[in-house]
């Protein structure tokens, strides 16, 4: 038993290490991109600025230092969660982000919740009645969900529920009814992906030998699926949920724009339009960090469920 837990700890440690490496690469790439994107100074200064003003600004922002020193400052700042100051908001970037983060988190979590609540029963229902009408119907809906761009879904929902029926607000934030449309919009694509994957992985499981053994032991069909099928079928789904988070984050950016939801997504767009480079840098890094952390959690969960993986080097 302790051999197994030691192996688990070792693999978890290596995963954390890779995650850190990825973050490091992300930070470096962002740093380089900002520097490449042209002279930040010229974007910040009014056209008639004098040379002294330019030098002064450069000194304040630390842009007059050699690149390597800037890089070192940047990295050390990151470790302290100091991402510089937003040019537009005149506040530390970390502050601005912290203000907006909860809204996006709420949206993403609600969307994931809705997605699971719909996708899991749908996937199971489709797999249990493979090839019949129910399965075909669900597969068609899945196809529609995967092909429809999320921002259009949002617009259609606004048209139906906010404009025509007038039961839900078209934008804004604050109450549960404000949350419904954006969360549903965001959930659509994920529902399709998760349902489809659960269905196919459950189909694989249902035709496996150990399911036959379960039947031979006297399990009824539902009992067999719940006791033996689901855990096995959920493995690939868990991995996909991790990958889906990336899509969810991307979708959040669009959904927030459609519904004017005051979260990180809209913040990023605003920052880009305002050429607020420190803020853009901060939000990009944060998204990357969130993604990496979630993938890490997914990885660790996977190896916790599948004992075959744990003993691998």
């Amino acid at each position, binding site marked *: 038993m302790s051999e197994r837990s030691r192996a688990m700890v070792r693999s978890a440690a290596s995963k954390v290490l890779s995650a850190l490496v*990825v973050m490091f*690469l*992300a930070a470096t790439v*962002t740093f380089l*991109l*900002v520097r*490449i*994107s042209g002279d930040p100074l010229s974007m910040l200064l009014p056209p008639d600025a004098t040379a002294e003003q330019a030098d002064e600004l450069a000194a304040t922002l630390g842009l007059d230092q050699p690149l390597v020193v800037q890089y070192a400052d940047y990295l050390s700042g990151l470790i302290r969660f100091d991402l510089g100051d937003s040019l537009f908001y005149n506040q530390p970037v970390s502050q601005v982000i912290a203000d907006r983060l909860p809204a996006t988190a709420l949206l993403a979590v609600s969307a994931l919740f809705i997605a699971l609540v719909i996708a899991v029963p749908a996937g199971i229902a489709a797999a249990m009645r493979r090839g019949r009408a129910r399965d075909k119907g669900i597969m068609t809906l899945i*196809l*529609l969900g*995967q*092909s*429809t*761009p999320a*921002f*259009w879904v949002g*617009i*259609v929902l*606004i*048209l139906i529920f906010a*404009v025509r029926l007038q039961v839900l607000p*078209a934008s804004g934030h604050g109450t549960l009814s404000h949350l419904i449309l954006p969360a549903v919009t965001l959930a659509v694509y994920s529902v399709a992906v998760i349902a489809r994957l659960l269905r196919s992985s459950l189909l694989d499981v249902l035709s496996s030998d150990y399911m036959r053994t379960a039947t031979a032991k006297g399990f009824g069909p539902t009992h067999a699926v719940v006791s033996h099928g689901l855990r096995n079928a959920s493995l690939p789904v868990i991995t996909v949920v991790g*990958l889906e988070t*990336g*899509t969810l*984050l*991307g*979708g959040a*950016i*669009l959904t927030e*724009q*459609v519904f004017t939801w005051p979260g990180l997504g809209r913040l*990023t*767009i605003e*920052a*880009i*339009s305002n050429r607020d*480079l420190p803020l*853009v840098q901060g939000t*990009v890094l944060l*998204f*990357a960090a969130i*993604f*990496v952390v979630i*993938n890490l959690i997914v990885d660790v969960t996977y190896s916790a469920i599948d004992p075959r993986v744990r003993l691998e080097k």
Partner: protein
Amino acid sequence: MAGISIAASQDAQTPTHTAWRALRQNRWGMVAVVFLAVMVLTAALAPLIAPHDPQAQNLLERLAPPSWAGDSDHLLGTDHLGRDVFSRLVFGSRISLLVGVSAAMLAGVIGAVVGLLAGYYGGRLDWILMRLADVQLAFPSILLALAVVAFLGSGLWIVIVVLGLTGWVSYARVVRSEVVSLKTRDFVTEARAIGVGNLTIIRRHLLPNVVAPLATIATLNVASAIVAESALSFLGLGVPTHIPTWGSMLADGQLYLGTSWWIAIFPGLALMLTSLAINITGDAIRDATDPKVYRR
């Protein structure tokens, strides 16, 4: 040596033949392909098909409803600047198709090269390339696209390059696994034994076998590239704003949703149908060419 290459190409079933045969049996697949053909034609013949200049503003006729719903003579109505929606839709399809296909091709080339190299040479090169793929996957593509656009500005070519750069991973993975399984087959080991150069082997023996799975992924990739382009345009970060795209039409239309639903709905519908048609076609191609699917 000629004998071996004949054996190799006989080994690879012509994907076009099997695909065509299977498509003919698949009703929805045919519908989807026909739809796409019509779309491509429309995009190519845009100037002939569009009744109005997509950029022509006519403030007297702004926000006019579609001709079958109101009494304007614009098939799908006009937008807030009096521009004909139908014409803009037709010209918008050009951008979508251009970006979608170019980005998919770029991603395909990059992905195929990476996959071939990684699968064939294995070892350290394989490890590095696959780690790179993992890191790439660690970033949601929208985010990457946004980051690049934020720092390098927007524009048609940047969008294509970015989408190409974000899409290569799925190609690479598939190609790599195909190559790895083909690498140990007889015709490859024989060719090697005779002394055929690695590049020739890759080109003549491995590449043809890899085309079928590549085609499936490419199709699906085109769909996601089209949607991604319109997402960027929707956010105002895509192609320059004077060029009509479905995404920017959606963005404009959203502001007038209360009164003039047609401005946003039609481009969205076009997007959805196109994406749907491509996905159906891609599924049909995969069902036709993937031998694993035959095993029930």
